[in-house]
């Protein structure tokens, strides 16, 4: 089967890989780019652990062929922390115990990232509704919701501080 060149900018770094068209985005991330933070779960779009951001929007990387996102900007869980400094979402998931086994966490974090970046004033109910796209079998979602709300509040405060400092 002829291979296709696919260029992806993942977490700010551009790579070109040569893949069979049937290769799923999640497998390119994990196998070709070595980014194993993104997990593979149900492989048919239901569980959400493979969720990544494509040009800022959450998608299922297990139901996306890599060739379909040629040229796109992809963000994965590896792109959240800045060096040793965790992203506020990661920090709050840690603090509020928003995970137990951790299997759903990479997808949950990326979905949460989309939710709070799109709506800094997100409410508790909107977070609950928003993360309904991702399955977690450990936490009962309560701690995840609390962590996302806390991260949203922190990020809003931080950005207000930055804006204030600039003004």
């Amino acid at each position: 089967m002829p291979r296709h060149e696919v260029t992806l900018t993942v977490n700010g770094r551009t790579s070109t890989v040569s893949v069979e068209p049937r290769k799923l985005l999640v497998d390119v991330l994990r196998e070709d780019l070595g980014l194993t933070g993104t997990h593979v779960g149900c492989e048919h779009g239901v569980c959400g652990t493979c969720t990544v951001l494509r040009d800022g929007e959450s998608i299922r990387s297990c139901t996306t062929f890599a060739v379909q996102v040629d040229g796109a900007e992809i963000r994965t869980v590896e792109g959240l922390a800045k060096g040793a400094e965790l992203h506020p979402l990661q920090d709050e998931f840690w603090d509020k115990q928003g995970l137990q086994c951790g299997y759903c966490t990479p997808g949950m974090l990326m979905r949460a990232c989309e939710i709070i970046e799109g709506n800094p004033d997100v409410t508790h109910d909107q977070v609950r509704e928003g993360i309904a796209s991702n399955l977690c079998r450990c936490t009962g979602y309560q701690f995840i919701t609390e962590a996302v709300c806390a991260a949203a509040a922190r990020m809003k405060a931080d950005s207000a501080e930055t804006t204030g400092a600039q003004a």
Partner: protein
Amino acid sequence: MSGLVTIDTAPVAARSDRGADDKEVAVKPPPFQYAAPTSVAEAVELLGAHADDDARALAGGQSLVPLMNFRLAQPAYLIDLRRIEELTRIRTEGDTLVIGAMVRQSHAEHAPEVALGAPLLAEALGYVAHPPIRNSGTVGGSIAHADPAAELPAVVLALDAELVLAGLGGTRTVAAADFFTGPFSTAIGSGEILTEVRIPRRAGGHAFVEFARTHGNFALVGVAAVVELDGGTVARASIALSGVAPVPVRATAAEEALTGTVPDDASIRAAVDAAVAGLSPAGDVHGGTETRTDIARSYLRRGIELALSRAGDRR
């Protein structure tokens, strides 16, 4: 997809397909050739040229890729429509809302043109799976896939939309009423692709309601309704249901029962009775025929009442 499939061969098949490249581990979907043309003309030409390979059009892939991961679909050639610019636009032509087949569901859901020209569609889109699926899934893809439980087929049926199909011989337009021919089957001929959904603007109140075990799951029953009032009397009613038959169905008898009445509990009940009279939804593990009929009855009432309340001057 869950619940519909039995997986028994995927790991074995994946191994046997492994090439010389050691990195090629655990590939789920069957091999296929791929092209991403930039025009409709090029796409239909490719479709025709590879008809023997069971060539298929690829839209957002949110139904097709899962089917391929399970190897329930094994097309040898996929023609990705994502690079065809003209299919990604929403425009208004007079009183008609025209949605390109490749418009992503999340885009249509939040587009001002859709809120204005087809609020029923915007409301229904909020029930299509979850945002990460809608960020890839397309309006045309869902309609062409024609899942009997899907929202958009019922919506285009209720709105008397037209579907534009392009083939080697040019384009043709099919009414939604003639488009759905069976479960996962449509009037799209071999060598044709769906390019546009044309929705006439409708006056009156709309409602889309559905019952699913959990939000985002496939619905057991969905109801799409538009009701237009004239001085308190129902001037026109359009009602379609999903999930109750192999194809989405228009509740013509209910529409007739409502039209010309000043809606009240009795006339709504009569319309609901008329709608379910001809239904015999197939039962499964999530609900038998009787349960599904009861749910249909309940959601028809909710849908009609909500549409009426939005139509304004009820009673």
